Structures are given as structure tokens and as C-alpha cells.
């Protein structure tokens, strides 16, 4: 699956606090707070300073998690689109 390559800001650009199963995520470059549900934090971590396309994101996350999805490519594409709209990942 050849798609666009995305990259997220390095970890020091954000402050995170776990709130139960959610993550309060302060993004310093925008001064904005986001509430993230899994797998958004994991995707950001996988792309922090390391560009990759959707397949690579899945592979990186898959090293540490059992991925559960009926349609992983569609799901990951939807997650990346959301994160791009929020300005948390950008085209590399």
C-alpha cells in the first residue's frame, strides 16, 4: 500500500497525562490540548520524528501490540486523516 508519508513532532513537543484510558495531550507548537483515545497516542509515538506511511505505522505499532481490527488499512487511514486535520501529523 503506497500512500503518503506522515511525520509527527518529536516527543519533547508534547506533554501528556494519562486520564483513565484516555490521554490529555498538550501540543506545544499549536498551544492546543487534545484528548486522545487509543490508538491515536500510539500512532503519534510511532511517527514522532520518524516519517512513515500507513503500512510502516502498522508495523511499528504491531511490534508492541496485538492489533485488533476488521479492516486495518481503512482504520489506520482514518486515524491518520484525523491526526492530520488536528495538525498532529503532517505530510513528510
Amino acid at each position: 500500500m503506497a500512500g503518503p508519508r506522515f511525520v509527527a513532532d518529536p516527543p519533547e513537543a508534547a506533554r501528556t497525562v494519562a486520564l483513565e484510558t484516555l490521554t490529555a495531550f498538550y501540543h506545544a507548537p499549536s498551544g492546543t490540548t487534545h484528548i486522545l483515545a487509543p490508538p491515536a497516542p500510539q500512532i503519534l509515538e510511532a511517527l514522532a520524528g520518524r516519517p512513515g506511511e500507513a503500512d510502516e505505522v502498522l508495523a511499528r505499532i504491531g511490534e508492541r501490540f496485538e492489533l485488533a481490527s476488521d479492516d486495518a488499512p481503512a482504520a489506520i487511514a482514518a486515524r491518520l486523516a484525523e491526526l492530520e486535520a488536528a495538525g498532529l501529523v503532517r505530510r513528510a
Partner: protein
Amino acid sequence: MSASVVARLLADPAAAAEVEDWTAVFAAARGESLTGSLAFRLKGLKLPDKVGRLLADARGAAEAGRTQALWEAEMARRALAPLGLPIVLLKGTAYVAAGLAAGTGRSIGDLDILVPRTALPEVERALLAAGWEWVKEDSYDDLYYRRWMHELPPLIHSTRDRMIDVHHTILPLTARPKPDAEALVADSVALGNGLHILCPEDMVVHAAGHLFADGDLAGGLRNLWDIDRLLREFEGAEGFWQRLHDRAARHGLLSAVHRAGRLANDLYGTPVPEGWRVRDGADPLFKSRLLARDGWGHPTRRALRFGFYLRSHWLRMPPLMLARHLWRKARRRSEPA
């Protein structure tokens, strides 16, 4: 009265020792959107604790505003990057993006960018696709903007609630001076991340033209402070004043630039060439208008302000067009409900 104290403090921070009524200074500075600039200007001085606290708060507010302005520019850059165009930042966002002294503590509202006029349709499409929306759908205003203005009708981002003004030149097309828009873009300076700023001389010409050849001078004290900071930062460069003169002449804004220099010199002690310091009969009126705010933050000199408001319309439009414009506005107001 009190706007003049703000101007004095900006020009000479040591005068802070003589301030008796800081409440009035803050009210006037807030009214002129100069609190952040003042707070950075007075940083490090020995001042009463409470004054220092309020100034620190103002610096915090300015820093947050700076982050937001830069982020909005970055989001516009991402939206427009596929077009491969030079995107020129204007005004406050340009000052902070370039790290200029004029950006220190400056309040920044909308994002202003300049693009080649021929690229407007694709820029508009790209912004609409990336979540920006028209602020209003009114055909007359739309047509009015497209035919006569130097910018697209304002767009606002649907989730970030920030406005963007997309300019293709720096004065309304109906104004008498005709700036050389192609030269503005061609000679802009790349910042290295895909965004550009105007070259130093054009930056001064734009600030002066915006202040004296376009608007009604509301908030003008802040804009004149920009000009002071820009001139002081650029004047050390070899041949700057001659280049500024030539560039202002090329854009048809020499008199605006000269007036900006004279008034900045008068209010802020800005260094300008000896030859610029001529007497001008209208300068005192401009100065009064710039300082028309009291220690309650309340605008003063109502008649003078109204006069400058009329002047701003006059500058933007030839008389016949102005009459037609006002006629249409009046008719729309009085249309039967």
C-alpha cells in the same frame, strides 16, 4: 492624554520611574493593543511588584498569541504547500516568524498572506478544501471584494476559528497609489520552511502604506511602533535609506513612508535621515489622531476620529465610486422589512 504616556514609555522605558497612575497606563495600552510590546520594553526595570506582575501576565499573553499566530501560518503552509507557490507572510505574523524586534510582544489578530494575483483561484480552492470557510455569503460584498479589493473576502477556519486574509497586493485596487505587487513577491525573502516575508524595504513601505494610505488610523499607535522597530532594525544596513526611498517611490508610497518616518521620529525618537525632517502642516492632526485615547482606555476626539474615518473611504475610492458604494449601503439599510 494617556496614549501619549504609553508612547513615551515605549520610546524611553526609563520614564517608568515617573509614572504615577499605572492603572491609566494599562487601560490606554490595552486600548491600543500595546500591552505586550510595553511589557517586553519595560522588562528588567525596577518597578513596583504589582506593576511587574501585570507586565509579566502581559508577556505571557503575548507569548501565547505568538505561538498561535505561528501555528496558523504553519497550517496555511501545509494547506498551500502542494501548490508550490511563494506564500508571503505579512504584518505581525511576518515579524514573529522572522524574529524581528517588531514582533516582540506584538498583538496579532488575523493571518495575512500575500500571493501572486494569478494564483488566487487555486489558493482559494486549497484553503476551502483544508477547512477554511467564507465568513459570509453576500454577493454584493463578494463582488465588491473581487472587483475592488486587494484581498479575498475573509475566510475563517471552521475548527480553529482564526481568520485568514489572502492579499494579492497591499492597497485596494481603487486607491490612487499602485504598488508593484509582482515586485513585492519577486523580491520577498524565503524563511527556509516554504514561507516568505517581504524584503526589509517593502516591509516598511507596507506598514507605512497601511497606516497612512489606507485605514482610518484606529490602532495606529501600534502600527507606528512597528515602523519604529523596523527602521531601527534595518537602518544599519549599507544604503538602506536610499533603497527605502527608491522602493517607496516605485510603489507610489513615498509620501506615506515620509510621514511614517516623521511621526515615528516625533513620537518614538526613531532615527530618520536629516532630509526627511521637514515641516508638514497635516502632521499635527495625524499625531492627535494617533494619541486619541485617555487614561480610562476611552477613545477621545470624536470629530477628529470621524474625519479620519471619512478620509479612509476617500482614499480607497474615487469620488464617483464612493458615492455609488455609499448609496448601495444606504439603500440596503433602508430596504423595507
